[in-house]
């Protein structure tokens, strides 16, 4: 079994494990989430700026992935 076949199966398995789990009660109630709605509590407050920084790093560092950039292109010579 190839690595990516295993990866696909893992994706599907995780989805199956989550079946029906939405009926559990949250421990942080909706009325307690005012602070979490504040702009400074967002991981992606300015997606355009985040995407530009991700592109700058992706073409200059050996590591790629795990960030906000999914586009291609080079611009790196």
């Amino acid at each position: 079994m190839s690595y990516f076949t295993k990866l696909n199966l893992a994706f599907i398995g995780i989805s199956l494990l989550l079946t029906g789990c939405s009926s559990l009660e949250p421990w942080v109630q909706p009325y307690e989430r005012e602070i979490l709605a504040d702009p400074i509590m967002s991981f992606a407050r300015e997606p355009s700026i985040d995407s530009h920084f991700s592109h700058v790093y992706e073409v200059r560092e050996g590591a790629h992935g795990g960030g906000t950039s999914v586009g291609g292109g080079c611009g790196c010579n």
Partner: protein
Amino acid sequence: MNHLTFNLNHKTQQIILSLLLIGLFTFNCEMSEAAVLADDRADIMTHYYSGGNVTAQGPALLVRKGNDKSYSIFASYYVDNVTSASIDVEAQASEYTEKRDETALGVDYLYNDTITSISYNSSEESDYLSDNVNLDMSQEFFGGTTTFNIGYSAATDTVKRVDNDFNEELNRYRYRLGLSQILTPNWITSFGFESIAEKGYLSNPYRSARVLGAYVPELSPSTRTSEAYSIRSLTYFDWRGSVRFDYRAYTDTWGIQSDTVEIGVSKYLGSKNILEISYRTYSQNKANFYSDNFSAEMVYMARDKELSTFTDTTIKAKYTYHMFENDNGFFSKGTFTSSIGLIQFDYDDFTHYQTGEKYSYKATVAQILLSLWF
């Protein structure tokens, strides 16, 4: 033939994976609470990068509009006007200018508590074309305290040279998983995983390796598989500010391992201003077929500084001004944001081709952004 088999396998996997995920997410948590689509919004940005004798600048536009209930369409346009005389170009070629256009179009579809996102983006420059198709799904659980994301991308790149008819193909497949968790009323965290498989031409047609001081065309392996694991944390404090912590661990089949750490502090200044200061550090070891100067010819040889052992550190400041908020006007909210980042690159085993000293350079990244909600 192997190339064809690889493509067929992944295309089959893509179709099966997509159908299964759509089915599973649709029926899993049908009775859960409703998720929310992203706000209708327009971003107009100008961006700038300068460092290592490379300058890239241009405009970017992002527009998102939906019906608040079931769908949100988004489109973006991004331009890089590049002038490059980087050390890699200096050693073997001359300065050049080129333009890169990136366009994207996608739709988010909300059904019960599941958001399905399908998008296409394309990047085009004179010697590099890239077409990407992306499928992402997110599902809220436990009354909205937990969000699970899963995504898949398939890309086909065409690598060319401007001075001859060189033309090679590269296929890229990205698998990603994410989990965001509200831990307390003022603390949220997320975990991410992404694996990328690439097959095709993974070298740079302009760059050379060095063997006993002589330059020869570089050659990289034709496959590469990587894994990236990330954890993020964001905590609110009573001084009207938040602290963000990000960490990413990366490894790939070329032997590169890297760590990325970023810490950011955001704080309200008055009621309309937000200042964010952040620090990021990145370090990696070299690929197993990298050398600054090979002592003998090898099957695979590269001297790309991106594949060497190096560190880079970034100090970034971002300022956001809330211009207005008006529920009755066409635009409900407007913000102005300016950001600047200073990056220092220090290479351990990549030397300047003239001086022989370890190479290093500073770069500046800046953006000015106008965001309007409607």
